[in-house]
């Protein structure tokens, strides 16, 4: 068992402190299994990640929840918010929040900055039909605060 660290001083985090294990992944599979799509009706935990103004417009930003990295997209043009895993499954890099967003035939999408793989922000599928998929998470805006929905 690796060292357990206590984290403090998060910006706009709930007061309770929590524990996590430093990320030392062994396999690609292990990492991918961390990220499973969550639908709104299954949410058990709405996690507050900040105020709407903390998030740049028409692009992504990365937040941290336990050991997960989640990309949050503030799509001002359509007035919608989206969240996906930050990990691009193509080369396993934590970069999707840095990608440009936009649409393909009306489907909102993010383009990975490394090799321009396009993913639907609605269901996480690869828009070129490749066998790559990212997990998506529901986003809720209440009183100017941004919440992401998780199972646990």
């Amino acid at each position, binding site marked *: 068992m690796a060292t357990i660290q206590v*984290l403090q001083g998060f910006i706009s985090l709930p007061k309770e402190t929590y524990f996590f294990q430093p990320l030392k992944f062994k396999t690609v599979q292990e990492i991918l299994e961390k990220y499973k799509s969550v639908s709104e009706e299954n949410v058990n935990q709405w996690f507050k990640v900040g105020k709407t103004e903390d998030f740049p417009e028409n*692009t992504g930003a990365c937040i941290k929840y336990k050991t997960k*990295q989640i990309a949050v997209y503030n799509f001002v043009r359509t007035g919608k918010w989206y969240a996906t895993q930050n990990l691009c499954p193509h080369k396993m890099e934590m970069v999707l929040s*840095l990608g440009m967003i936009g649409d393909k035939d009306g489907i909102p999408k993010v383009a990975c900055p490394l090799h321009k793989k396009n993913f639907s922000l609605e269901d996480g599928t690869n828009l070129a039909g490749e066998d790559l998929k990212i997990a998506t998470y529901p986003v809720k805006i209440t009183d100017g605060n941004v919440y992401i929905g998780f199972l646990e």
Partner: protein
Amino acid sequence: MKKIIVVGNGMVGYKFCEKLVASSESKNFKITVFGEEPRPAYDRVHLSAFFENQDAKALEMAPAAWYKENNIDLIVDEKVDNIFRTTKTIITAKSRQLTYDYLVLATGSSAFVPPIKGVEKEGVFVYRTIEDLEGMLGYAAKLKAKNPHARAAVLGGGLLGLEAGKAVMDMGLEPHIVEFAPKLMPRQLDARSSKVLQLKLESIGLNIHLNKATQQILGEEAIVGMEFGEEDVLDVEMLVVSAGIRPRDELGVNCGLTMGARGGIVVNNKMQTSDEHIFAIGEVALYNEMIYGLVAPGYDMAGVAVNQIISKVACQMPDEIDMSTKLKLIGVDVASFGEPFMPASKGHSIIFENKTQHLYKRINISLDGKSLLGGILVGDASDYNMLHQVYLNGMKIPEDPSQLILPASEGGSSFGSVLDLPDTAQVCSCESISKGDICSSITEGGCNNLGDVIDKTKATTGCGGCKPMVTDLINETLKSLGKEVKETICEHFDYNRQALYDLVKVSQVSDYEEVLNTFGKGHGCEICKPLVASIFATVTMETPNRQPTIQDTNDRFLANIQRNGTYSVVPRVAAGEITPDQLIVIGEVAKKYDLYTKITGGQRIDLFGAQVHELPMIWKELIAAGFESGHAYGKSLRTVKSCVGATWCRYGMHESVTFAIDIENRYRGLRSPHKLKGGVSGCIRECAEARGKDFGLIAVEGGWNLYVCGNGGATPKHAVLLAEQLDDETVVKYLDRFLMFYIRTAGPLVRTAPWLDKLDGGIAYLKQVVVEDSLGIAQDLEIEMQGLVNRYECEWKQAIESEEVMKRFKHFVNSDDTDDTIEFVPMRDQKKPKAWV
């Protein structure tokens, strides 16, 4: 139902089956195929590809299942031993007896092994089958284990021999080619082209020995050398014999068919042997007293035999068989067509030779100057398809035939449009697909792109050499149907880059959202966003800091994102000149932030492995020491490379470093459709490699020669001369005009070389615009560039001075943590990203 037995399951035997199955009569025939090798037919033409992937399946003409699906009995690993013509029966080595109505002999050929003393020794191979290759691989591995510098020779400098040479080289052995004749590829090339090929092959590491008659193979059990004469010995530990082919015609001899004096089963123009029920096709057939060792005539023979058997008797072999051929030997284009060696009495030859670039082109023109009789291409065979068609179809040639082969930049031009070809012109000779077949697959068959056309017609699936021409045909046909997709930026803008550039410039829109709302539709994407960002940058010289979210990630963070999501940092080192103090600062910063350092190709220093939150800290220190952004992350001016020039070099004519610094500083930060690189050399020795850049200056007597539109990269291109003997001031003037003209008119992500390629009128037109001001815009261009130069600002300085911009350099919005998934591992006293397991 009639019974057909095919003896031999090589490429031609397979093609026979394929063509019969495809015919309307196929249900009336039952085919049984015998193959001696343990696997179904494979693509022997691309045998050397087996070394790259060792995947025999990839070479298969069709999987075993294909035979089953088409009701063909495929019996591999079983040799047919004899034919009894009176009872129309064959018997195999496994004593299987079968009767036939038609027998097709497609037994091919075997490697000819000359009777040299000692040729039976261990380590001597032939190059013919996958099994041969596997044997060679195993033996080579053993040799290399004992001696990493082991040498291997190939006996025979013909087409197959050179292929074998490549195979030997790929195995990691030192390759030697031994040829009896005084030149390589004696059947296809004349003496001069052969010499050019030899120079090229030697430059990539092949050792070539000509005029060598091998007397004996030396060694006890295994080969240790070849002896050509007294005291003329080549030490080698492996030998591949590739000295020609011999038809596998034993079956014909045994059953009494008419044979050629030097082997081969005689056939008529119906591919019938002296027994009308027995056909012979491919390399075993002797037609017009010739054995044809190429795949295309073999396929034609298969087609003729099929048609004869299904009673379409009009289909016969032509009297003259086109032996034109184009291939890539060890990455070198070699082609010959028509009559490559024409006697002077029949016509004139036009020859272009450039030994420094290993280029040779020869065309033979009839005495009346009206038709093309043949030719040879070495080093660059991109003109082959067109020339071959001109030859085959007897098309009219330009009044000055040299235009057919001169490089485009020297006054030559490519020959007309592919649509000028007659419909009967055979474009894919392996599959016998005509121009008409390809065009009608689009006009009538509903095909819309290369993939569709390949699926429908099978064109390009043989040797693949016709792919460029098929692609051209498809594009031109689509265009003629008005189907061609307009050259638009992306689904959000129905304009090309130049049109949108003009719109943004005249309409005074202020940001991307406004551009999208005014001129576009939808919500944008990763193609139009950076393009609009680049347009704004070249219209107003704004830095990426103003509209960060429409920038490519590199521009957004003013650094180059690398494979593990970390960034690299490159400060500007104009022209590569750097003081010891500056070097120390870079060293100290790199040490402090534990960065991997490397000298770049552009004469500066790249610092790798910075995390996003470290970038501002790193830059604060660099800027305090007087550095500024190097724009290595942008589609913008990168570097102007220099040689040391007259300042130090005893050959230098002008001060190349000084001038390179001036130019780099003038255009620093300039955004453009793609990256821009420059070079300045102090003399014609060209140590700055200026002709490999988008713009290059070379010092000559009386000033600078200005070259433009070169690049390295995937498609290297030498820059071409724009103007000569210019003084410093004129150089800057012309550069201003040239760069601004490029920025205004180029497509997105099009570098200067392909831009010039597409520019109507090419370099001559560019000279008119830039030097002679034929469009009357020179002054505009200069003023515009001067405006951009005046507004330059270091964007990193801008960034660290703005709190708003600094917020960007943080991995998490909701935490000050850094990305803990980034891991490094040590490498040669530095670090590198850890690869995922």
